[in-house]
């Protein structure tokens, strides 16, 4: 029984290199976002979630966004947005968490093509643009439903107000996805010794 659990854990978390990169991505997501708190929508959770899905796969697809948000969301709700009602907090958190989980799963869909190549970084950067817009539309809808709708504000007004924030979010994605994408692709290909030697530039060992 114990062995079964161990096997399940190993299959889910991957080898030592994958685990180190997974934890590293969580640290990048949390620290980067905390450091840039005064810059609206400039954050690293998006890039970390996309890379977790596309680079590491396995449980990391969901573990990276969930763990990062488990730290960041309570921090946000207890500082910047302290005092908001439970209904608003739960609702907005649902939209944020499901949005980043979607980003992770979408990253996972493109994972077979991800190699340490310029093409891979370009693919990740390109994909980050529509995914960022989709994420912002999703969370703007949540914000409208739980916070501004009761004030009689229409969804169109919220979407108009969202435009500059989405531009900042796109800026954030276009900076951090290629930046961390290059670093993590390199680390995954060459950075740490894997259990079984992997040839550089080949698809890294995954589930």
């Amino acid at each position, binding site marked *: 029984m114990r062995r079964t659990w161990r096997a399940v854990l190993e299959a889910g978390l991957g080898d030592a290199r994958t685990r180190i990169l997974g934890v590293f991505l969580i640290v990048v997501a949390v620290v980067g976002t905390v450091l840039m708190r*005064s*810059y609206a929508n400039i954050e690293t959770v998006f890039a970390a979630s996309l890379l977790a899905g596309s680079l590491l796969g396995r449980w990391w697809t969901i573990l990276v966004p969930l763990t990062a948000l488990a730290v960041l969301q309570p921090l946000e709700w207890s500082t910047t947005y302290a005092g*908001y*009602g439970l209904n608003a907090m739960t609702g907005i958190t649902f939209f944020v968490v499901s949005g980043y989980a979607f980003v992770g799963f979408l990253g996972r869909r493109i994972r077979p093509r991800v190699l340490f*190549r*310029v093409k891979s970084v370009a693919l990740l950067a390109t994909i980050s643009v529509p995914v960022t817009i989709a994420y912002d539309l999703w969370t703007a809808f949540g914000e409208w439903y739980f916070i501004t709708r009761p*004030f009689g504000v229409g969804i169109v007004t919220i979407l108009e107000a969202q435009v500059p924030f989405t531009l900042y979010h796109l*800026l954030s994605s*276009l900076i951090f996805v290629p930046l961390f994408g290059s670093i993590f692709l390199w680390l995954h290909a060459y950075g740490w010794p894997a259990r079984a030697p992997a040839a550089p530039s080949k698809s890294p060992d995954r589930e």
Partner: protein
Amino acid sequence: MALRLSERRQAIVFAAVLIAAIAGLYGTTQLLQPAPVQASIVHLVQLEVVGYGWSIQYGPLTTDNNTAFGLLLEASAKLAFPVAYVWYQIPQGVFVTAINGSVNGEGRYWLYQVDGVYPNIAADHRALHDDDVVRWSFSTAQDGM
């Protein structure tokens, strides 16, 4: 015959496209930033802060805090009531989270009006003119906008 670029050339092309995209986006965001308010002296502006079961009035003869937020901070300093806010660098602007101990949430939020109109910019970017009336109210959903 398809043109096949070396990895190095691909990297250069990608970097160039990426930098152009980032620069273009950054330029657009800068164009969308609200214009800063030029400091000037305004006369007979009035401030009313309406909380849940309390209110504060403040009306200086003249002030050089000529924004809706500046006037609130001036009243906060003169009448000794706390104001909590978050300042965002981009997009530039303040977000008032609490006045005199009343914190945003549970269906009530701090909103401001100038001469009965809800401006669509942050309070530190809303310039005041002579005789303007600024009202900060701890509004509920029922109050509408």
